[in-house]
C-alpha cells in the first residue's frame, strides 16, 4: 500500500479507534468508581420500579402479561401522582430493570452494578459523542481533550454511575443536539435526531427544554442568514444559486457585459447553461432540471413550480425541525406504555407534577432555601464552584476565543453567506448551538421560581458545552504557545498534547479525590470541600454517604435497632449486600424510630440538624461516637444510646389464660 492510501486509511480509522478507546475508558472508570459509592435514596425507587417495568415488558413478549389498560396501569400508572413512579418517564428505569434481569451474575456483575450498567454505558456514549462532535468542528486533538474533560467532572462522574436519570439525560440531550446538527447537512441524521429526542423525553422531563435550544438556533441562524443576504442584488462577488425543479427548462439568459470571471453553471437535464463572468439574467424555470448557476446574477429568477411542490420543498428544507417534532413524541409514547391510554391526560399529569413540585430544603450560600424567590445566580455560582478550576479557566478562554471568532466571521464572512444555504449557515454555527444548550439548560434556574433541589445535576446538560469550550481554549493556548517558537522541532500538536495533558490531569486528580463523596466536592475556587462548607454550600443529598459509616456501624456490639435517617430506603440494600448487619433492623422514621433505636445516624445537611437534636433529646447526649468526614468536613454522625438506667421491672401477676 502506498503512502497516500495508508494516510487515508489512518485518517478514516484513527477517530474510530480513539472513540472506541474513550468508550472503554469511560465505561471502565465509572463502572469501577460506582462500586465504592453508596445507594441514593431515589435510586432505590428507580431500581424497584425498573424491575417492575422489565417484568411487564418481558411478560408481554413471552405472552404471559396482556397488553391491556389494566395491566399497564398496574405496572406503570395508578391514581396517585407517584404511583408506580409514574412521575418519571420509564426509559432508564426499564433499561436498568432489564440489565438487572439479564446481566446480573455473569462476569461477576453484582445486582447493584447490573442496575447501574445502562447509565454507565450511556455516559460512555456521551464521551464518544463529545469527541465526535468536537473533532468534526475543531480537530482530533481538541476532540480528545473535550471528551476527557467531560469524563473528568467530579460531580458528573459521580452521577454517571447511578441508576438515576441525571447522567443519561446529559447523553441524550447532547445526542439530540449532535444529531440535529448533523441533520443540518444530512437527511438521515434528521430522523436520528427525532428518535434521540424521543429517548431523551423518555428519560427525564428536562428534555422538554430541548426545543428551546434547537428552535432558537434554527430560527436565529436562518434570520441571520436572511439578514446578511438582504440587499445582495448588487453583488460584490459570486452568487451560487441552486434551483431544484421538475420538468423541462425554458430559460432565457441574457448575458451582457464583459466576461471576466471563472464561474461555471450546469444544467443537468435538457439544456445546459454555461456562463462565465458577470451575468444579467431573467430565468423562467418550469422544468425538472437542477441548475447550478455560479455566475453573478444581476437579474431575477422566477420559479413557476406548483405551490404543492414548493410546500414539499419547504417541508424538506425545514425537516431538521420537523423530524424531532414528529418522531420525538412518538418515540416517547412508544416507550411509555402508560401513555398508550389517555396520552394527553397522562402527559399533563406527568408534567404538572414537576411544575408544582414541592420545594426541597437546600443550602446555598449559607441560607436554607425552601421557598421562592430563589436566587437567580444559583446555577452560575454552583457551576463556578463544582467544575474543576482548570477546566473552568480553559472554558472561559475558549468561550472568549469562540465569541471573538464568531464576531470576526460575522463581519468578514458576508461573502461566504452569499454562497451557502440557510441550513448550511446554521450548520456552521455549532458554537451558537452549544451556547444555547448551556443557556436553555440553566435558564429555568434564573427565574427565581424553579426549585434548586439537587443542585448541579438539574442543569448537568449544560456542562459539556463548558468542556468543549475548555478544549477550544486549550487548543488556542497551544497555538499561541507554539507560535512563540515557530522554529522549534516539536509541532503544535505536541504543544496541544502538553497543555491538554496539564488541564486533563488536573481534572483527573480532582475527580479521583472527590469520589465517592463527590456531592460534597467543591473546587479550588471555593476552597475545596471545607471552603464549600465555609461558604454554606449544600453538603450532600440522597443520604448516599452513609455507606462510608457502615463499617463502623457493623463493628458495634449489642445494638438491636438503628435509626438510619436518610439512608432508610437503602438500608435493606446494604443488608443484602452484606455491608450492614442483617440483625440490625431499621427502627423506623422520625422521633418514634429514634426512641426505638439504640444506634442512630444523621446525614449532615442544614435542614437535618433537627434530627441531631431529636437524637440528643432521646439519647440524652450530644456526643456522636463516630463522624464520617470528607476532607475534614462532616458527612455523617453516628450516635449510640448510652446504657439506659431502667427502673426495676415490677413483677406482674400472670394474666388469666
Amino acid at each position, binding site marked *: 500500500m502506498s503512502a497516500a492510501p495508508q494516510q487515508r486509511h489512518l485518517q478514516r480509522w484513527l477517530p474510530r479507534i480513539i472513540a472506541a478507546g474513550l468508550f472503554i475508558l469511560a465505561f471502565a472508570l465509572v463502572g469501577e468508581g460506582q462500586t465504592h459509592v453508596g445507594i441514593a435514596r431515589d435510586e432505590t425507587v428507580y431500581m424497584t420500579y425498573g424491575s417492575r417495568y422489565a417484568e411487564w415488558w418481558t411478560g408481554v413478549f413471552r405472552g404471559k402479561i396482556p397488553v391491556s389498560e389494566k395491566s399497564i396501569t398496574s405496572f406503570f400508572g395508578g391514581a396517585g401522582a407517584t404511583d408506580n413512579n409514574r412521575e418519571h418517564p420509564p426509559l432508564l428505569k426499564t433499561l436498568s430493570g432489564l440489565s438487572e434481569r439479564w446481566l446480573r451474575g455473569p462476569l461477576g456483575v453484582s445486582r447493584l452494578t447490573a442496575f447501574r450498567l445502562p447509565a454507565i454505558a450511556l455516559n460512555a456514549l456521551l464521551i464518544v459523542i463529545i469527541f465526535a462532535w468536537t473533532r468534526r468542528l475543531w480537530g482530533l486533538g481538541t476532540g480528545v481533550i473535550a471528551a476527557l474533560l467531560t469524563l473528568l467532572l467530579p460531580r458528573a462522574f459521580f452521577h454517571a454511575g447511578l441508576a438515576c436519570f441525571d447522567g443519561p439525560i446529559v447523553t441524550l440531550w447532547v445526542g439530540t443536539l449532535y444529531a440535529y446538527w448533523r441533520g443540518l447537512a444530512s437527511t438521515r441524521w434528521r430522523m436520528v435526531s427525532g428518535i434521540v429526542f424521543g429517548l431523551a423525553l423518555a428519560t427525564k422531563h428536562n428534555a422538554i427544554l430541548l426545543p428551546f435550544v434547537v428552535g432558537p438556533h434554527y430560527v436565529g441562524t436562518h434570520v441571520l442568514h436572511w439578514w446578511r443576504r438582504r440587499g445582495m442584488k448588487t453583488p460584490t462577488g459570486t452568487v451560487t444559486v441552486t434551483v431544484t425543479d421538475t420538468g423541462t427548462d425554458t430559460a432565457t439568459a441574457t448575458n451582457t457585459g464583459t466576461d471576466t470571471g471563472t464561474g461555471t453553471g450546469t444544467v443537468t437535464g435538457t439544456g445546459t447553461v454555461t456562463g462565465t463572468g458577470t451575468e444579467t439574467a431573467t430565468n423562467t424555470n418550469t422544468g425538472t432540471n437542477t441548475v447550478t448557476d455560479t455566475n453573478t446574477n444581476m437579474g431575477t429568477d422566477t420559479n413557476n413550480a406548483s405551490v404543492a411542490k414548493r410546500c414539499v420543498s419547504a417541508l424538506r428544507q425545514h425537516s431538521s425541525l420537523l423530524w424531532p417534532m414528529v418522531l420525538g413524541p412518538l418515540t416517547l409514547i412508544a416507550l411509555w406504555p402508560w401513555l398508550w391510554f389517555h396520552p394527553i391526560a397522562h402527559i399533563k399529569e406527568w408534567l404538572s407534577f414537576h411544575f408544582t413540585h414541592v420545594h426541597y430544603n437546600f443550602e446555598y450560600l449559607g441560607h436554607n432555601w425552601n421557598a421562592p424567590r430563589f436566587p437567580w445566580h444559583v446555577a452560575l455560582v454552583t457551576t463556578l464552584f463544582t467544575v474543576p478550576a482548570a477546566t473552568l479557566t480553559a472554558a472561559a478562554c475558549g468561550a472568549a476565543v469562540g465569541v471573538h471568532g464568531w464576531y470576526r466571521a460575522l463581519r468578514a464572512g458576508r461573502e461566504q453567506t452569499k454562497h451557502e444555504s440557510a441550513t448550511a449557515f446554521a450548520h456552521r454555527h455549532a458554537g451558537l448551538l452549544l451556547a444555547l444548550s448551556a443557556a436553555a439548560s440553566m435558564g429555568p434556574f434564573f427565574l427565581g421560581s424553579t426549585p434548586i433541589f439537587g443542585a448541579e445535576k438539574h442543569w448537568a446538560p449544560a456542562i459539556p458545552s463548558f468542556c468543549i469550550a475548555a478544549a477550544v481554549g486549550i487548543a488556542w493556548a497551544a497555538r499561541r504557545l507554539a507560535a512563540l517558537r515557530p522554529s522549534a522541532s516539536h509541532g503544535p500538536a505536541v504543544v496541544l498534547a502538553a497543555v491538554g495533558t496539564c488541564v486533563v490531569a488536573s481534572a483527573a486528580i480532582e475527580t479521583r479525590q472527590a469520589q465517592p463523596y463527590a456531592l460534597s466536592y467543591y473546587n479550588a475556587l471555593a476552597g475545596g470541600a471545607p471552603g464549600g462548607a*465555609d461558604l454554606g454550600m449544600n*453538603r450532600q443529598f440522597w443520604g448516599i454517604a452513609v455507606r462510608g459509616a457502615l463499617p463502623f456501624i457493623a463493628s458495634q456490639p449489642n445494638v438491636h435497632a438503628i435509626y438510619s435517617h436518610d439512608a432508610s430506603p437503602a438500608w435493606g440494600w446494604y443488608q443484602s449486600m452484606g455491608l450492614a448487619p442483617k440483625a440490625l433492623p431499621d427502627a423506623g422514621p422520625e422521633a418514634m424510630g429514634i426512641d426505638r433505636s439504640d444506634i442512630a445516624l444523621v446525614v449532615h445537611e442544614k435542614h437535618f440538624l*433537627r434530627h*441531631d*437534636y431529636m437524637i440528643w433529646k432521646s439519647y440524652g447526649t*450530644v*456526643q456522636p461516637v463516630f*463522624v464520617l*468526614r470528607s476532607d475534614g468536613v462532616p458527612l455523617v454522625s453516628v450516635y449510640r444510646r448510652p446504657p439506659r438506667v431502667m427502673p426495676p421491672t415490677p413483677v406482674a401477676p400472670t394474666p388469666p389464660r
Partner: protein
Amino acid sequence: MIVFAPAWIDPVGRQHLGDLIPLDAAGRLDAARFPTIWHVAIRNATNPDVAGATARESQDFDGVTVTRFEQPKITVTADAAALLPTAKAAGAIARGPSLELAEVGFAPHRCVQVVPQPNKSVRITYPGMALGTTLVAGVGLADIFTRRDVRAPGKLEIEIGGTIVATAQFGVDDGWVKLQAATQPGAADVTFIATAVGANARDRLICFAAEARQ
C-alpha cells in the same frame, strides 16, 4: 461552656468533647449566663457566642485554636423552661405547651413549645416568677418542615402585671429572636402570649425560652 467554629465543625467537636456539653448548655437561650466559654476553632473562624466576651488565654494545637473567654457573671433567678410545670396555659391551644429541645433557626433550643390555633393566642402564665433586673427571652418557629409548608408568622408578647413589656413577631426565616425587658426585682405574675398570626397559621410551633436575670 464549649463552642466550636466554624459551625460545620460542630459534630467533630462534639465527638471529642461532647461529654462535657450538657443538653441544657447545648440548647441555651444565649451564652450570656456562662461566665467562661471555651472556644475551639479552626480556619481562623469565630463563634458568634463569644461576641462581647474577653479572651483570656489562647493556645494553638496543630491548627486547632483553643481560647478561653470570660464575661461578667450573671445570676438567673428564674427559668421559664424549668418552671413550666408550675405554669398555667389558657386560650386557643392546638398543642402543648411542652418542654422541648427543638430546632429553631437551625440551632438547638431548650424551650417551651406551644401551638396556638390559627389566628388565635395562647396565654401561659407563671405565677409569682422571681424576677431580677432583666427578663430575657428568645423565641422562634420550630421545625424546618412546618416552616417550609406554612409560611405564616408567629408573635410573642410578654406581660408582667397586666402590662405588655416586650413583643416580637417572627417569620419562618427569622430564626431565634431575642426580647428583653427591664424588670423590678421580686415576684410577679409573668404571662407569655403566643399567637399564630393569620387565618392560615396552622402548625405554628412557637418555641420560647426566658430567663429572669440579676
